[in-house]
């Protein structure tokens, strides 16, 4: 049952996304909180799915927890700031790495930061958390046992 570790956020995230979609059917269209519900749902789903995949019976997630926290924070903070910061885009806007601040948060924060961090965490924790030679030997022994008459 250890693999259920990520299930609660996955279910909560699905419900939050469903709530955002459902609210769009209300008279007058989607309320102001609908994008927030969608952001919460996306962040919970992404981190929950990763935790669900990484969890193994009898093993702690270890450094992987930091990757989950990082992903959740990046998604909520960058999307959240894009939602709450005032829309100042226009002639003379201050640019961050060539883009207006809110666009830069989305493009560099969400579009690039996870691409730099998550593959590194995956590779670094691979043997400890994902797969090693002993695991592979167990699988191959099970295959031989299944094939035996």
């Amino acid at each position: 049952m250890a693999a259920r570790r990520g299930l609660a956020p996955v279910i909560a995230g699905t419900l939050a996304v469903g709530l955002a979609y459902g609210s769009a059917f209300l008279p007058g269209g989607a309320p102001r909180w609908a994008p927030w519900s969608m952001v919460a749902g996306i962040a919970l789903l992404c981190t929950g799915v990763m935790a669900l995949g990484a969890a193994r019976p009898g093993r702690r997630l270890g450094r992987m927890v930091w990757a989950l926290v990082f992903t959740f924070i990046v998604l909520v903070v960058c999307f959240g700031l894009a939602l709450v910061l005032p829309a100042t885009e226009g002639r003379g806007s201050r640019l961050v790495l060539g883009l207006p601040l809110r666009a830069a948060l989305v493009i560099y924060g969400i579009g690039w930061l996870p691409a730099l961090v998550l593959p590194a965490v995956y590779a670094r924790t691979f043997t400890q958390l994902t797969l090693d030679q002993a695991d592979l030997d167990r699988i191959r022994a099970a295959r031989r046992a299944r094939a035996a008459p």
Partner: protein
Amino acid sequence: MIPLVLVLYFVIVATISVWASRRTRTARDFFVAGDGIGIWTLAIAAMTATLTGFAFIGGPGLFYSLGLGAVFIVLPASLTNSMAAWVLAKRMRLLAELRGVITVPDAIGARYRSPTAQGLAAVAILIAIIGYMGTNLLALGIVVDAVFGTGFGWGVWLGTATVLAYSVSGGILAGVYTDLFQGSIKALASVLVFAYVLRLEGGVGGLSRVILAHDPAFLTPWGKLTPLAALSFFFVFGLGALGQPHVISKFYMLRNPLHLKWYPALTTGALMLTLLLYFGIGLAVKAEVAAGSLAPLLRADDATPQFLLHYTPVLLAGVVFAGVAAAIMGTVNAFMNVGAAAVVHDIPIALGVRVSNELYWGRVATVVLTAIAAVVARYSGSLVAFLGIFGWGLFASTLVPALAIGLNWPGATRAGAIASILTGLAVTLTFETAAYFKLYSFPAGVTVSGLSLVLSLLVFFAVSVLTRRQAADVDPDITLAMEV
């Protein structure tokens, strides 16, 4: 020059397919490359299958029209390969090790001990790929016509014949090694094009200033979309990536499972480099049109051709056009393979039949499915676009719950898997058809794909909980693959 580059490209593809056809002796070679490919080939082939011609033509055009909101389609690329690695790659590769599974529905059948779930997943895949292949062959016809002046009709048939030749002879083995070549071209071409983007108006900052002076809404985080609509793109294309069979079935092909360690780094890196073209051309063309250096586009899809013709050397334009053809052909090849496997492997298993010579019939099925898709592309008019639209969503809503969640959650049940696949099929087909015939449309910000994915997930959880006594009905070796 451009036709010459494309001809050279087709000659290289033909050489690879001749080489691969000599090494394709069994159904396992044809469908999963005999579990014999290396991690670089897997990573580039997965990237190539992910990015269709849309990333080179439709995507930059959409960015030109919608602004930053269009980037939300590819924004999840920074996360999706790592997510897929954690949740699917190891489990699927271990299932191939244990059971010799060769298709995505195979994995679903083994996980739930259910030929019915396997058959339903195969039917969903088959419905989705006909439309997907049709739209890709249509795009290939446009590219062949644009470069060689063959006319659209002959363009479709010539493009189809080329991709069919290497797919039938060499199966997925030809496909993945062609993808390695094609993917490398795509990534290189994108980086070079982006270098030319940076020479305009002093780089990204200069381009942004020009746009902000004329159309500030373009560079708001959501572009011309509402926040909910842009975030909905992120949800559908982020989570939905875990259910794309033409990409995830490639996990079966890796020679050494321990090399999966490098999968997210290599695939994400290749994807990010290739997507530079999507972002760069969309931004540059908008700025150049705003500055009056380029005439306003008649069609948004002209963004890439116009940029290439005006701002890059002809040789690079030729390489990018070859890259577009490569993107389309790589995706079509992957669809052919997945569709043929559904016809000769998964659906017969669901019906209690075993096809005796899967290699031969796999080749026959590849020809038949491709012919159907080509006819749809050539003669169905607007229907092909409709069929292409729901492909991604149908894959996502029918496969993400049963496969991506089900392989990692011991509480998932056979009834939950079947109910979620049926929900994905019913919701997607009903509402997409209603939208096509203008009988009903969802409010702004809601997509059929997104809603269908949410509903199939909720049904999956609810039915699994209600039938939780079935949860223990899993073979011991499958439990081992889920726990390792």
